[in-house]
């Protein structure tokens, strides 16, 4: 159905065009035809042959009469010449007319009659003279003799002329009739063509009107849709603005080439000292971090969770995420920045809680062991000596019982401070639990460890703590020492060794240092 429509149109157009061509041709033909007729009928008709024939006939009679009157002496030579001249003038047009060609059947006598009469009149005319009467009488007798016999034939000429003129007029009538018939057909054709054209014009006009109306409707609906779309876009834009502004993340949309700022969150804008092109650089606290960030920015399409310190005036930790976009066919960077200062702080706090003994501030047992393993491995690798001290507060349970837990805690804290003072720079130190502490002393062989332990024990002994009643609380510690012997070993093993040494110290009276290592010179008391 679809392809037949244009074909149908094409055929209609072809038909219309051929009708037009026929119309034009027919009109041109008719114009030529009518123009010929116009030219013909511009001059008045010349159908005077009947009158001329009648005149010839009557002049023949009058010439004959005049000849008789000349013979009777009643007329003169000029009169005869005049009548002869008149008769001759009547003969000439009939000799030259074409009208007798229109006779349905040729009248053979007719040209003979005309010719005979012409020769007679010519002969008589050449013999006559205006003044010669005798010559006129001679000619007149010939005329009187011959002219009466010409009256019959000249009468026949009238009849012939009448028939000829009638035939000619009828021929012209038929010709005119045919012409008018053709004109009628041409006019009919013209009328039909005009009707077709008018119909086509009307149809086209209606079609155009319809199309115009449809186009108008389309245009209007399009405009409405565009307006609706624009309104929605603006709503979305506003919504997006609200979302972005209320988001915990700060957002910046920057041109990749010129760092043109398409959008920068208010908070981010306040934190940077420069706008537009210098914005990003001014945001970073550390220029080295900025350089690294830029390198990453140009090398990868997207990356997340890039930690950086922002805002040089009041630095904070931010987590940066980047996406590459295209805006108006220009590359752009979408940068999200999440303030993670709080998280960082909490992280730090948690780490502290997880690794530290809250009472003494020393590392807890787990942390100490981890640090000790690390340090021990390092010492083994470097083939350096390394010793473990296990420290226990003497009779701590009695202090707790006598003075209360608060005082006990104070004792623990005081001892921890002393331990920290002596051992902190030398290696990992921690509270194993209760009143028991441990320390790993790097680069210390048995002797060195012993000396350190002795110094520590001595220092704690000098510690004076006030009880609640005001009495001094004596605090002493026992220390077990184990030294890494150079073989492959573990902190646990060393701890066990040191623990055994501690037990020995306890059993030998407390407030003393002991070691199981026989190579270490135990001081003698």
């Amino acid at each position, binding site marked *: 159905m679809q392809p037949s429509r244009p074909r149908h149109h094409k055929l209609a157009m072809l038909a219309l065009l051929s009708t037009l061509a026929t119309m034009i041709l027919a009109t041109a033909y008719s114009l030529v035809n009518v123009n010929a007729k116009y030219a013909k009928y511009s001059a*008045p*008709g010349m159908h*005077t042959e009947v009158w001329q024939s009648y005149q010839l006939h*009557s002049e023949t009679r009058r010439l004959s009469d005049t000849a008789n009157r000349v013979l009777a002496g009643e007329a003169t030579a000029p009169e005869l010449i005049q009548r002869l*001249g*008149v008769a*001759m003038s009547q003969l*000439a047009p009939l000799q030259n007319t074409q009208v007798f060609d229109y006779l349905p059947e040729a009248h053979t006598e007719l040209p003979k009659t005309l010719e005979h009469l012409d020769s007679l009149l010519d002969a008589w005319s050449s013999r006559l003279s*205006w003044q010669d009467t005798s010559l006129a009488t001679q000619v007149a007798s010939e005329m009187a003799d011959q002219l009466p016999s010409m009256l019959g034939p000249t009468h026949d000429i009238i009849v012939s002329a009448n028939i000829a003129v009638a035939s000619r007029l009828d021929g012209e009538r038929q010709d005119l009739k045919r012409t008018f018939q053709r004109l009628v057909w041409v006019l009919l054709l013209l009328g039909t063509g005009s009707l077709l054209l008018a119909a086509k014009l009307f149809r086209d006009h209606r079609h155009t009107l319809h199309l115009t109306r449809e186009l108008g409707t389309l245009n209007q609906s399009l405009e409405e849709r565009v307006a609706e779309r624009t309104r929605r876009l603006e709503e979305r834009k506003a919504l997006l603005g609200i979302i972005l502004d209320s988001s915990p993340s700060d957002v910046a949309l920057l041109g990749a080439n010129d760092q043109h700022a398409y959008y920068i969150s208010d908070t981010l804008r306040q934190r940077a000292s420069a706008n537009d092109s210098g914005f990003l650089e001014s945001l970073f606290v550390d220029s080295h971090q900025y350089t690294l960030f830029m390198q990453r920015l140009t090398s990868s399409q997207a990356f997340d969770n890039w930690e950086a310190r922002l805002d040089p005036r009041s630095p904070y930790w931010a987590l940066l995420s980047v996406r590459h976009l295209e805006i108006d066919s220009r590359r752009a960077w979408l940068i999200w920045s999440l303030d993670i200062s709080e998280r960082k702080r909490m992280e730090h706090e948690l780490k502290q809680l997880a690794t530290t003994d809250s009472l003494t501030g020393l590392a807890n047992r787990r942390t100490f062991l981890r640090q000790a393993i690390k340090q021990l491995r390092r010492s083994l690798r470097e083939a350096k000596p390394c010793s473990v001290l296990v420290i226990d507060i003497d009779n701590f349970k009695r202090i707790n019982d006598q003075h209360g837990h608060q005082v006990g805690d104070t004792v623990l804290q005081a001892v921890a401070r002393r331990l920290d003072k002596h051992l902190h720079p030398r290696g990992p130190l921690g509270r194993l639990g209760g009143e028991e502490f441990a320390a790993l002393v790097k680069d210390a062989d048995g002797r060195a460890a012993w000396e350190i332990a002795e110094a520590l024990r001595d220092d704690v002994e000098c510690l004076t703590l006030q009880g609640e009643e005001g009495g001094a609380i004596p605090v002493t510690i026992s220390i077990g020492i184990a030294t890494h012997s150079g073989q492959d070993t573990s902190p646990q093993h060393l701890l066990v060794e040191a623990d055994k040494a501690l037990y020995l110290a306890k059993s030998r009276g407390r407030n003393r240092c002991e070691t199981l290592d026989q190579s270490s010179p135990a001081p003698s008391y």
Partner: protein
Amino acid sequence: MHRVITRLLLAGLLLPFGVQAAPPRDMPILTIHPGPGGVSHVLSVADLEAYPSRSVTGLIPDVGDHEAEWTGVSLASLLQGLGEPLPARITASAMDSYRETIPISDLERYDPIVAYQRNGEYLSISQRGPLVIMYPYGEHPELLTRAFFSRTVWQLDELRLE
């Protein structure tokens, strides 16, 4: 070519009558009858030539004549010269008893002439002379109708003023 043939035809028309000479110029040939009580005037070609001449371009219709310069006397001035007041109409008669009436308005509008020369030559009777009432067809093409053809009277021999 066509023109040449037409001319030959024309010559053929007129030449055969050349054998007849034009009437003597002093021969009385035109009679003018004024209204009742008036005295008739009989005029020869020479008499007409005494009046100021007027030339028009015209032709004798229906006989295959061609346009030519006809010289004669203005009909109006002829009547004036004869001392005749202008009549309502004039009936012109020919030697072959043909006659037709000319309204006086023609004299005022077209000033037809009584011609005695065609292209400077006198005409014999067989050439439809010697006098012809000629209208200025060349100057007024609108005259080319049967009404004026009828008033173009050749072999003129009588004018009757009415």
